[in-house]
């Protein structure tokens, strides 16, 4: 069964017909040529397909595209230039560069989108598994950042750099391997 859907992807209106079995990830990569989200496990276990969907971090491999008609998708590539020009890196992207938050880079677009989502969730006061006091304020300490980023695996093991990058943008003292 084919259905027409409309999406906003990285600021561009896109309209396409899609087989109901197609995942949002495959639609982005194979039909719309948006290759920033990566296919790692394709089963919701690695986080490399993470995008910001209607403002929140979201997997695209466990999402049927047809169910997201009308949604706004921002990929890691779409974060670049969000300051108003085409070249300025998003602060999270710049921090990943500054802190060597990657080696092969395959998981990086998902890590970046997830980090942007984490910072928004911290800003909204969302608690996490390691938050001591559920009814108090949340702090962006290393334990919190590690727990909140646990849905994004990095097989190169660039975690110290990833943590340093997210820590810097979260407003904590810079450190780690940089």
């Amino acid at each position, binding site marked *: 069964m084919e259905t027409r859907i409309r999406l906003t992807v990285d600021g561009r209106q896109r309209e396409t017909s899609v087989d109901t079995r197609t995942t949002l990830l495959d639609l982005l990569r194979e039909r719309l040529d948006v290759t920033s989200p990566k296919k790692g496990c394709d089963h919701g276990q690695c986080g490399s397909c993470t995008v910001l969907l209607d403002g*929140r971090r979201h*997997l695209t491999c466990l*999402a*049927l595209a047809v169910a997201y008609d009308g949604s706004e998708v921002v990929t890691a590539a779409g974060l670049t230039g969000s300051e108003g020009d085409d070249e300025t890196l998003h602060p999270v992207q710049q921090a990943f560069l500054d802190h060597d938050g990657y080696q092969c880079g395959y998981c990086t677009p998902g890590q970046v989108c997830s980090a942007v989502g984490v910072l928004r969730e911290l800003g909204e006061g969302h608690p996490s598994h390691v*938050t001591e006091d559920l009814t108090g304020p949340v702090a962006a300490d290393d334990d919190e950042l590690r*727990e909140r980023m646990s849905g994004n695996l990095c097989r190169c093991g660039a975690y110290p750099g990833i943590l340093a990058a997210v820590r810097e943008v979260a407003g904590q003292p810079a450190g780690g391997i940089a």
Partner: protein
Amino acid sequence: MRELDYHRADDAAGAVALVSGDPEASFLGGGTNLVDHLKLGVARPRVLVDISRLPLDQVEEVELPGDSGGGPGLRVGANVRNSDLAAHPAVRSGWPVVSRALLAGASGQLRHQATTGGNLMQRTRCVYFQDVTTACNKREPGSGCSAIGGYARYNAVLGASEHCVTVHPSDLAVALAAVDAVVVVLGPDGERRVPFEELHRLPGDAPERDTTLAHGELITAVELPASAAAATSTYHKARDRASYAFALVSVAAALELDEAGRVADVRIAWGGIAHKPWRARVAEQALLGAEPTEERVAAACADELADARTSEGNAFKVPMVTAATQHVLQSLQGGRR
């Protein structure tokens, strides 16, 4: 993957009519489990009825109806996302075990996607259930159980049968069992309320059925009665890595002590132990009226686990769930939620 017809439901009754009238139709919520099963060949529906945009997305403080026990409580719409429910101020203060259980499950991305109703309807992560090249009575009734005599680390220790030894994967469900939640279900003949303990079932000779719901019945809400114990509740999950893993065992507990430090009210539910969230009523009874010392809690757990059946691969669960229960009740006495 099989060809799929897709319908976006306009209202809950219409969705129920579509699915209940077609044995090959399935509800689609957040899709975190079902879309995976479509890819794996574990689920092969012909029709998906997408309920994710139905306006069942509110968390409301309400007076509960009589058949949910009455009194003040919380009504949680079935489409409330796991992340939103965990972060809701009323849940964090009145039912902290629910927040803790949700935050112990999955990842930040998945919690934004997964719904309250869908979490309760998710299926086991038994490696054989998810591998269509192996025998599994839950996936293919009558084909046998590969987990008996196979990889046993996650297997049940209570309430299993010769047909199925798997456990229920949800963290939220364990918390809801401990706070006496009520599930609001819409079927072709109207609405009914199901006490949480009656939602999931033990495998018996029909492990293909995870719940007592009929095909086409839809969870529309979950109701949480308020209590002093629920406000002093927490969740502990033991797992093979510190985050983003299913439970080996887990404990949801709610505790109210009297002025002398004796148990006035206690509710304990275990995850990773059985085919359904295991409400430990024998242990609760043993603790009522007594000071919940480590020794008493251990003895109460031993009573609850008297019928435990283990193999070499999962025998660790008996001491692990006992220690986790001791830890949780100690934490609650210390005021940690």
